[in-house]
């Protein structure tokens, strides 16, 4: 578990530190339990029975078990990118697909790999392939993202973030 203070004071990753092919440190979560799923359902007030009622999921919906929520996955990838950028970078954008169901027992590995980098208006834009691998190397959320990392000696990334024109 990483504390908020540790994130605020972590060593900054700079634009200069990465290049195409750089693999970012992965985030490993799990094994997930029904409690994890139920906690998210409660927090989101998502009461669909496929997320907490195993009999309903198996015998009514023909699912393998109760399922991890898409909205949970949608929270994890941005959180991972945000943590990569802290304290002074910015997780600008991410898009991904939901391709595989997540069930209790799964351990997830959230990952990112640099595909390219470019400067725009003095900001260091880093393009990434991203995903969330399940046990058995099943990719459940393939996608792409762009983060903004500080350039050494460069200008500060504005907050609130202002996207460079045409980037």
């Amino acid at each position: 578990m990483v504390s908020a203070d540790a994130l605020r004071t972590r060593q900054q990753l700079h634009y200069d530190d990465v290049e195409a092919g750089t693999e970012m440190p992965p985030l490993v979560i799990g094994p997930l339990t029904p409690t994890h799923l139920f906690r998210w359902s409660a927090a989101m007030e998502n009461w669909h029975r496929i997320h907490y009622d195993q009999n309903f999921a198996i015998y009514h919906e023909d699912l393998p078990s109760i399922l991890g929520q898409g909205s949970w996955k949608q929270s994890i990838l941005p959180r991972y990118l945000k943590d990569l950028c802290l304290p002074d970078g910015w997780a600008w954008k991410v898009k991904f697909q939901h391709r595989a169901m997540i069930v209790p027992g799964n351990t997830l590995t959230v990952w990112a790999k640099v595909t390219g980098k470019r400067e725009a208006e003095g900001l260091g834009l880093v393009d990434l392939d991203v995903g969330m691998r399940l046990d058995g190397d099943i990719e459940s959320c393939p996608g792409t993202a762009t983060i903004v990392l500080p350039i050494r000696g460069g200008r500060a990334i504005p907050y609130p973030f202002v996207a460079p024109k045409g980037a």
Partner: protein
Amino acid sequence: MGHWIAIGRKPEWNDLEAFAGELKAPTKWRVDPRTTITTVMVLADGRMVAECHAAKREDFDAWLNQKGWEVESVSQIRHLAKTGEIWKVG
């Protein structure tokens, strides 16, 4: 999707550690995206009961064969009760 119950024997699974090693990880019970081993019970008389839901029975048969079960019977489930909840699955 269909649901089936198999009754048979797999003596090694009387050992709890071996049983867990064969069935705990999701990749062990989610055989493939459309085949799930939902329940396995080890009975005191040495027999075992396994429940599967799958697109077709052959997928369950393949799992039983791969695990080395001595199968006594495999039957499709029509409906069931789970602590008062009634499910029609056949």
